């Protein structure tokens, strides 16, 4: 392969990456350091006000005061994303293990069922939870049917939000975890039992370590989109609690503060890159153990 071909052969891929990924990010980065326009939009003038606004507010005397309200939003976003990831891990492990033990034909069907929700629009799927959790919704009716008290208020809670996030992103956890679990030689599990390992020991010392690469990949795939999620906080959380995703959306929409929205987006991007970097540093260690 000639040097020229190696360069020009990859040109379409480069062009696509630059036009659809690098350029938009650069635009957002540019907007984040621009000046807010008087009637929305922005003016091309270098201004770091937006970043300052994340940590400080201007008091009555024009003096800057530290205000953690946006830090709380960032922290809350992290917490919810982490909670969602942990719940997804707890659910995906037994599901993957179950699928891996089925016959080849059943495996294909079950994996297909796991991915099935992806064929339906995300908005429709989240709306479905409105019907399940809503006032006089399916959950409340079932609860009453079994003699429960007249309750309401499942909807518009952080529980509803996390339920929606777990539901939306769990296929992204199941698939890589299943790929890891499926590769485990059943003889290793027998060997563990043979060497006096109870079920718990076998899970903790054999199955979990061997599933670690899949759990890591799945956690990234779930955690990262959870950081920027918009639909679940808006529809299921009722917009009561701001998350980074909804905050950004509001700045570009109602609040008409594009530079501030772009600045939050850059912070979000920084967190995502950080998570990916931490994971990348872990990778060589995992390949060393032959996985």
């Amino acid at each position, binding site marked *: 392969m000639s040097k020229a071909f190696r360069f020009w052969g990859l040109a379409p891929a480069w062009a696509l990456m630059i036009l659809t990924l690098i350029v938009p990010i650069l635009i957002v980065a540019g907007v984040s350091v621009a000046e807010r326009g008087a009637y929305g939009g922005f003016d091309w003038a270098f201004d770091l006000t937006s970043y300052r606004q994340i940590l400080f507010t201007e008091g009555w005397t024009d003096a800057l005061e530290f205000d953690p309200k946006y830090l709380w939003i960032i922290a809350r976003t992290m917490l919810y994303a982490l909670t969602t990831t942990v719940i997804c891990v707890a659910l995906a492990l037994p599901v993957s293990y179950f699928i891996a033990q089925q016959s080849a034909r059943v495996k294909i069907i079950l994996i297909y069922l796991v991915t099935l929700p992806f064929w339906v629009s995300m908005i429709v799927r989240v709306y479905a939870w409105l019907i399940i959790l809503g006032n006089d919704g399916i959950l409340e009716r079932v609860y009453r049917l079994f003699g429960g008290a007249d309750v309401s208020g499942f909807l518009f809670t952080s529980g509803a939000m996390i339920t929606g996030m777990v539901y939306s992103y769990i296929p992204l956890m199941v698939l890589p975890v299943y790929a890891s679990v499926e590769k485990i030689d059943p003889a290793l599990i027998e060997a563990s039992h043979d060497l006096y390992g109870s079920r718990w020991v076998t899970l903790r010392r054999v199955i979990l370590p061997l599933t670690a690469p899949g759990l890591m990949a799945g956690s990234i795939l779930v955690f990262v989109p959870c950081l920027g999620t918009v639909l679940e906080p808006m529809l299921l959380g009722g917009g009561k609690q701001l998350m980074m995703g909804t905050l950004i959306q509001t700045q570009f929409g109602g609040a008409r503060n594009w530079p501030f929205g772009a600045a939050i987006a850059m912070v979000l991007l920084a967190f995502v890159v950080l998570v990916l970097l931490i994971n990348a540093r872990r990778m060589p260690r995992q390949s060393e153990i*032959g996985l």
Partner: protein
Amino acid sequence: MSRPSAIEVVNVSKKFGDYTALDHVDFKILQNEFFTLLGPSGCGKTTLLRMIAGFETPSAGTLLLKGKAIAQMPAHKRRVNTVFQNYALFPHMTLSQNIAFGLENLGWDKARIRERVGRMLEMVHMEDFAARKPDQLSGGQRQRIALARALASEPEVLLLDEPLSALDLKLRQAMRNELRALQRDTGITFVFVTHDQEEALDMSDRIAVMGHGRVQQIGTPIEIYEDPKTRFVADFIGDTNFLEGEVIASDGSTATIRTALGTDVTTTCENVSGPGPATLSIRPEKIGVGEQAEGLILTSTVLSRNYLGGFTHYTVRVGEIDLRLSRRNAQSHQDAFDIGDAVRIGFRDSNARILGQ
């Protein structure tokens, strides 16, 4: 043979759906014995081994380990360890961690585990590899670590599931001797599963030949080879000529059979209760040819010749029937017989066996 038994298999049957893997199997494995379950694939030997390990439960019958019933005991509570066919070493652990795994689960203290792991590595000559991972080892080295791991806790019984089948020929030969020596040194009961009759004859104190889900015969390697009790055993162990015939006289332990050979043969018999159809079995190396012919002398024509270095195999025709025979090339190959040659062959009556139906 008044030693106590390590394992008693009591009337065990195992069915998988309609398929009967084990059919009323009943025998004892003695303590400190190198015991081999030998048979073709699908004979039930692996099912039986997995049952002793605790990975299968019998459909009927029971298992005793040193007199205690274990058929329903979970695998991790049995003082029985297994060397798996593909070793099943934990890929995410070092060799030391692999060996320590069982000891940790037994709740040994750290110092004792460290001392034992060191001793096991020494035993299999792998001291310098303690910190390696299994994927950095050759097949033979993995085999040794699998052995060390399984023997570390000094189990009552060590189960070996065709552990040599993944090794190349030369290594296999060396490992046979190592395994045998290890069994003598540790005094642990070994239950070895194989389909390789040579391995079984070479290593075992006693062999159980299995076929069609049943134990066909149990005995020392010499008994199994020299005195097969059934046609299945005679056929599976070594090579033999089967001649169909009629028993014309019998007294329980010996019988006289008339076959197409043209001469009646009188020798030890099995399962012969009176006149009727039976089979004469005579092994190729028991038939002498040329100057080595003795006993019952017959004339034959050479049909084919296979020169194998130490031995030459001939197929000869006597009257209507073909016999395979093996001649040791003790002198030189100069005196070989050619195809079409008329040769004298002969065997002693006492070297043949009459097997009933």
